[in-house]
């Protein structure tokens, strides 16, 4: 019996890990479709950001209450993995509570700590469910969440509650059986939470309790493996990607826009023709200006897209969105991820990318959205996982203006004023110091 269980477990476990690894590879490939940028400088500062922002969740604490609840769920999630380690080893080795004899008196303390965390996770998830579905919080009501994204969030919260409940159920049944000295259920010492739940199970017969205990054990680990495979399709990928994303986050002042060396070079040649003699002969494809599709964005932009939690903190702070414009930085990130997924699918089907007549610009993100951005950096400031929606917006704007010459008439007037009068308005450059005599 035990051997059969172990074999079934092994098959399920290997299959789950294999499927996850396959999807993870696809995502990695999709992210690397973006153009290259070197983000390996200042490793010290980057590690600090990873520790502070991803592990320490520093930005979450801009909203302290939510931060504490999120921290419960998060700490519960991370730490309970230790307990899952035991479950997996038990499953593979056909053992029961493998760590109990090894850890001795420490074991019940450890499990008790996990149980307390499990309760905190349940509380946290319950409050989050209420916040999302009952309370009218603007960032959870946005239309960019309609459909799948809204259900996705709820599925995850409910799953976590179920998993934690299964964990507590398993421990409670186990403890009752321990006290009855039933079968292999060796005494571990009392657990803090499930110890108090024992009266519920006391009236039940021992074989039923074994059924419950085994049932909960299997459902728990199957749930965890299912969760693992659900992650890559969900906004909850941030559990994993927030770490690399914080590491590779911007170190420059937020106001600094990315330079375009190709344009700089061309302008230099234009301004100083003597440089042209030494200029390298232009072989290779002509440079693209700005971004039209995900291939023109950087891999960090795409990593951003896959890291987005869809929490909407960016959108809630966006002045354009607050005043009813179409722009939502959260949607910019979700669109980018959707497009990357769509491109990935084409590659999977055809073994390479084939033009599907679509692009991130227009088919996903409209000009109207792009035009509304004030480059205020509020979205960048707010994002708890170091995402920069503004960088995508400015690259798409560059494409519009430089590749398509598509700008509102007023901007074209501004451009020609700058070019001819050295100022965005139609004043004579000779009057530039007229204020002195005012």
């Amino acid at each position, binding site marked *: 019996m035990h051997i059969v269980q172990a074999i079934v477990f092994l098959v399920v476990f290997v299959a789950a890990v294999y499927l996850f690894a396959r999807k993870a590879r696809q995502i990695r490939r999709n992210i690397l479709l973006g153009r290259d940028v070197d983000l390996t400088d200042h490793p010290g500062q980057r590690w600090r950001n990873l520790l502070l922002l991803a592990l320490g969740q520093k930005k979450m604490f801009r909203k302290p209450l939510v931060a504490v609840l999120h921290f419960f769920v998060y700490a519960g999630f991370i730490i309970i993995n230790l307990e899952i380690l035991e479950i997996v080893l038990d499953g593979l080795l056909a053992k029961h509570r493998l760590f109990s004899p090894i850890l001795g008196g420490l074991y019940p303390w450890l499990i008790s700590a996990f149980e307390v965390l499990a309760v905190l996770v349940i509380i946290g998830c319950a409050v989050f469910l209420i916040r999302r579905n009952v309370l009218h919080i603007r960032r959870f009501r946005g239309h960019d969440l309609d459909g799948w994204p809204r259900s996705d969030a709820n599925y995850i919260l409910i799953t976590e509650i179920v998993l934690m409940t299964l964990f507590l159920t398993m421990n409670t049944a186990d403890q009752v059986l321990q006290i009855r000295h039933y079968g292999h259920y060796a005494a571990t010492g009392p657990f803090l939470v499930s110890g108090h739940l024992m009266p519920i199970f006391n009236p039940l017969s021992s074989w039923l309790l074994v059924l419950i205990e085994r049932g909960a054990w299997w459902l728990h680990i199957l749930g965890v493996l299912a969760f693992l495979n659900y992650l890559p399709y969900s906004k909850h990928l941030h559990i994993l990607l927030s770490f690399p994303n914080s590491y590779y986050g911007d170190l420059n002042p937020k106001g600094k826009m990315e330079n375009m060396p190709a344009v700089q070079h061309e*302008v230099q040649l234009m301004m100083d023709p003597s440089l042209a003699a030494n200029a390298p002969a232009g072989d290779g494809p002509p440079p693209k200006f*700005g971004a039209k599709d995900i291939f023109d964005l950087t891999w960090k932009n795409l990593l951003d897209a896959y890291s987005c939690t869809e929490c909407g903190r960016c959108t809630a702070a966006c002045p354009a969105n607050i005043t009813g414009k179409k722009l939502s930085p959260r949607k910019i990130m979700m669109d980018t991820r959707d497009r990357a997924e769509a491109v990935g699918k084409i590659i999977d089907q055809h073994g390479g990318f084939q033009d599907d007549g679509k692009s991130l610009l227009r088919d996903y993100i409209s000009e109207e959205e792009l035009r509304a951005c004030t480059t205020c950096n509020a979205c960048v400031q707010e994002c708890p996982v170091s995402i920069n929606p503004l960088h995508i917006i400015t690259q798409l704007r560059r494409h519009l203006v430089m590749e398509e010459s598509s700008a509102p008439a007023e901007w074209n007037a501004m451009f020609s004023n700058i070019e001819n009068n050295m100022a965005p308005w139609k004043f004579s450059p*000779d009057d530039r110091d007229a204020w002195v005599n005012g």
Partner: protein
Amino acid sequence: MQIKTMAEYAASGETPEVLFWVGCAGSFDQRAQKITRAFASILDRLSIPFAILGKEESCTGDPARRAGNEFLFQMMAYNNIQVLNGYGVKKIVTACPHCFNTLKNEYPQLGGNYEVVHHATYLQQLMDAGRIKMKEAGSFKGKKITYHDSCYLGRANDIYEAPRQVLQLLDAELVEMKRCRSNGLCCGAGGAQMFKEEEKGSTRINFERGAAAVGTGASVIAANCPFCMTMLTDGVKEQGKEDSVKVLDIAELIAQDMA
């Protein structure tokens, strides 16, 4: 007030302590010109040798770059850097956060390396050095003042405290809006929005911000940016408060009550 240009300094073989980068708004916008004059008068009264570029100054290219026109930005930057490097400029002060950001963060990569300070920081440094003396009974004493964080000084460059410290010289009561510092709300002008109509929405960004500023009950809204100045002034007007609530730049506030 005698204001010398960089060219005049160079001709006389002298070098000024600092170059005052006026910026397009500060040069041409009638309201912003007052800020420019106020700041220049502070430098003048403290006998700080400063220069302007005068007709040799050009737009930094900020609105062009943010609208997406990198070519135009690079052209402006190239010309400005030629001029600045030609004069061997070391230190620049400007009353415009957009110019400040571009000169400080974006010109170095293109070969323009200067010490760039925004006038809020510059005034704070003068204040810390004890150089700014205020009148005994200033006109803002005890009045309620609220301060609007410009995006390009605040979030873009993490400067939140310098302007607030300068405002303390006024002996006024500083009241904060709900969205302030890193939570501040944009005035709606950045990213070249100043130069076009807003997209369709339920209200204008500057109306939203104007309402928040007026809502503090302050009689003065302090700004640090000529573009915020325009936007907030409109926002206050929309609230029908243009007679009781004044929008003033920190330089104007200081200049008015300097001893």
